[in-house]
C-alpha cells in the first residue's frame, strides 16, 4: 500500500494501484489515474464506461465484468479495448475508483 499525491490530495493505493478508500474518488483523481495508465484525456466514451462501472458497482456491490459493461452500455467489445488498450478488465475499475473485478469473462 502506498500513499500518492493525486489531483492535489493524498490518496492511498493498494499494490495494484486500486483506491483503498473508495470514498476518496473524484473525477479529477480518475483523470490522474488514467493519465498514469497512458490514457489522456478521458473522453465522453471513457466516461460512459466509468459512469456505468460506478453505478453498477453501487447496485451490485461488486465491479462489473467487461461482458456486463458491453451488454449494458452501447460500448462494444472492440471499442472498450480501444478505450483502455492496456487491459479494460483492470483499468476501467481502477480508474472508476473500484476494486479489482472478480468475474472471469
Amino acid at each position, binding site marked *: 500500500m502506498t500513499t500518492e499525491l493525486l489531483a492535489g490530495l493524498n490518496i492511498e493505493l493498494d499494490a495494484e494501484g486500486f483506491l483503498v478508500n473508495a470514498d476518496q474518488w473524484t473525477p479529477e483523481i480518475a483523470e490522474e489515474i488514467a493519465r498514469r495508465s497512458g490514457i489522456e484525456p478521458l473522453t465522453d466514451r471513457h466516461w460512459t464506461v466509468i459512469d456505468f462501472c460506478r453505478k453498477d458497482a453501487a447496485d451490485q456491490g461488486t465491479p462489473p465484468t*467487461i*461482458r*456486463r459493461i458491453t451488454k449494458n452500455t452501447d460500448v*462494444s*467489445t*472492440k471499442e472498450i*479495448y480501444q478505450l483502455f*488498450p*492496456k*487491459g*479494460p*478488465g*483492470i*483499468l476501467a475499475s481502477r480508474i472508476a475508483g473500484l476494486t479489482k473485478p472478480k468475474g*472471469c*469473462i
Partner: protein
Amino acid sequence: MTTVLEQQTTGLAAGESEQEVTRKVAIICSKGSLDMAYPGLIMANAARMMGMDATIFFTFWGMDIINKKKVDHLHAGLLGNPSSPMPHSIMGLPGMEALATKMMVKKMEELDIPPVSELLEILDDAGAELYACQLAMEMFNLSTDDLVPQVKESITAMDFWEKAEGAQIVFI
C-alpha cells in the same frame, strides 16, 4: 556538442527504461469437447482483459472449436472421464451424453458465459489472435471456408513457435 549528445543519450535511456514489457500467452487447443474448449478460450480472454497479448493455436480435435459446422454443437466429454458425475455404464446409454451436454450448457448460460461461437467473436474483438493448424486442416480435409471467420490464417507448427516467442505456453 558533447553536452547535446549526452543529453540525447540520457533522454533515450530514460525512455527505454519506461517501456513496459507486455506479458504474452500462447494457448494450444488440441481437444474439441465443450469442457476442453472453454478453459483455453476463457484463459485467453482473461489475458486480454488484463492487457496481455493472447494467441490461440487450434490443432487436432481442437479444430472442432473453429469448425463452422461443429462450433455450436460441441459435446461435454464425460465418457472416459474419471470426473464423470455418472457411472460409465449409464453415461454410455443413448442420449445420456446429449443430456449431460444440455445441462452443462444451461449452467453456462446461467453464469452468463457466452456460447463458444460468441466467445470466439469476443476474443477476436478483444484482439486475441486465432490460428488453425495447417497439418490438421489437411488431415481433416478442411478449407478456410470451413472455419469461423475469426481465424486469421492456418499456420505450421514452426510458424506457431515464431509467433509464440516470449510467451507463456499453455497446452490443452
